[in-house]
């Protein structure tokens, strides 16, 4: 008996109507995962740069970095994503007040195999999530760097390694291992934060669920499914990170 056939619990609850939306919801989930991994990666790479700038950058650079981190952490993510999203619109309105041709094209899109992988809303989401995540990740990375004893860098310099080489071969390999437990906070917050993309028209999982509800009126059921999917996703992420942490642990420590 298929879950969609007459008499099954799915049908009894009226969920078969949601079945029509399965493809859209899956596409939305794929978009959510895509936003997540790209933003997490951008956030990580930029976060390492920010953390190093704050830790080793000297008075000027470290203050700029600290300022960036404070501003990003002190303002709502939703405001940040709207800011990035409307920026080209505002620029167009300001630079070409009489209408088209616009200074910046906003209707571009890149598709691979019929799937839209990059467009103005998607890029805005990736940028907003990546730049936001970078600020949080930078603090986790910097905390890990600061927890490494001074003697490690001292020994590296005494051997004749430059500061950059010391950071690369001695400090970062240890910092990356140490930061995993606290960093996994950010890794498991970020999938939930990707829902802000919905507000700038990206068709992510959350957005698709809203559309499915508008069509089927199965709001409680849909939100329960949405919650369950995020829960599974985040559970998997924390399990994987816990395993990575155990596997990369330095023996004896």
């Amino acid at each position, binding site marked *: 008996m298929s879950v969609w056939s007459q008499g099954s619990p799915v049908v009894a609850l009226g969920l078969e109507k949601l079945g029509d939306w399965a493809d859209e919801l899956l596409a939305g989930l794929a978009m959510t995962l895509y936003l997540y991994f790209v933003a997490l990666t951008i956030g990580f790479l930029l976060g390492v740069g920010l953390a190093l700038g704050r830790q080793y950058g000297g008075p000027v650079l470290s203050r700029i970095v600290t300022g960036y981190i404070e501003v990003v952490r002190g303002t709502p993510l939703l405001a940040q994503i709207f800011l990035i999203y409307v920026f080209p619109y505002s620029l167009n309105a300001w630079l070409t007040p009489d209408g088209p041709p616009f200074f910046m094209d906003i209707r571009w899109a890149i598709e691979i195999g019929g799937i839209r992988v990059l467009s103005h809303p998607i890029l805005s989401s990736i940028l907003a999530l990546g730049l936001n995540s970078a600020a949080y990740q930078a603090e986790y990375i910097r905390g890990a760097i600061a927890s490494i*004893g001074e*003697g*490690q860098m*001292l*020994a*590296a*310099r*005494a*051997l*004749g*390694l*430059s500061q950059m*080489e010391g950071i690369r*071969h*001695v400090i970062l*390999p*240890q910092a990356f*291992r140490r930061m995993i437990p606290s960093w996994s906070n950010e890794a498991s917050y970020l999938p939930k934060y990707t829902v802000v993309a919905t507000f700038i028209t990206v068709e992510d999982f959350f957005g698709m669920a809203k559309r499915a509800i508008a069509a089927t009126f199965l709001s409680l059921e849909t939100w329960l499914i949405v919650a369950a999917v995020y829960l599974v996703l985040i559970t998997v992420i924390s399990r994987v990170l816990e395993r990575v942490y155990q596997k990369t642990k*330095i*023996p*004896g*420590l």
Partner: protein
Amino acid sequence: MNKMEPVLRVRDVWKSYGDLEVLKGISFDVMESEVKVVFGPSGSGKSTLLRCINYLDPPDRGDVFLRGVRLGEKDTDINEMRARIGMVFQHFNLFAHLRAIDNVAIGPEKVLGLSKEDARQRAMAALEHVKMADWADHYPAQLSGGQQQRVGIARALAMEPDVILFDEPTSALDPELIGEVLQVMLDLAKEGTTMVVVTHEMGFARAVANEMIFIDGGVVVERGTPEHFFRGADSERVRQFLHKLEELYGKEREELRDVDGE
């Protein structure tokens, strides 16, 4: 190479942190194969002196020459100079994420530019030298303090430096682990390694030091051969200090003399 030229010349080195003057004009030469022992009360500036020598903490005034080349000169690469000055730390400072062998190989590979294979070979030889070859695949946290310090010494040796600086290499060790480290250092000294050793191990000093330098309050109070100091130092301050050491470390000194007498 000119045997009469000092390996290391320390000329009138001054260093202060804020208002605190730590070094107030220290000078000495270290010749090829010479062992200098620097000692004195804590806070007298011994560790700072070693850090000034390899410019980890550049001196405010004064000069350090390695085989006639001045450190801190604009056209001398400080990293290249440091590669020729080994350093052994009180708290070992082994790289926590690397196995013993990789701790020793990283310098030859990343600083001297040896191939991975050659660096490993050289590291293995250095570990054998300090009798730690059997522990090559262990991480620092899996080793005792004495074993860690021997790896620390191997790390310095593998660079084949002109001189090795020892910053109180045994003072963080449990008493029963001091002997194995001192034995390695005695062997190195007898093989002709040029060494500057900050230590309170007077047995070691007596056995191999060519000259002992007593530092207090950032200045050299007295210098001379071990015989000079142990027959009776000129300064009352030094005599008091040696007497205190004897009270504290008397027993270990006897043990060391046995090691030396083998």
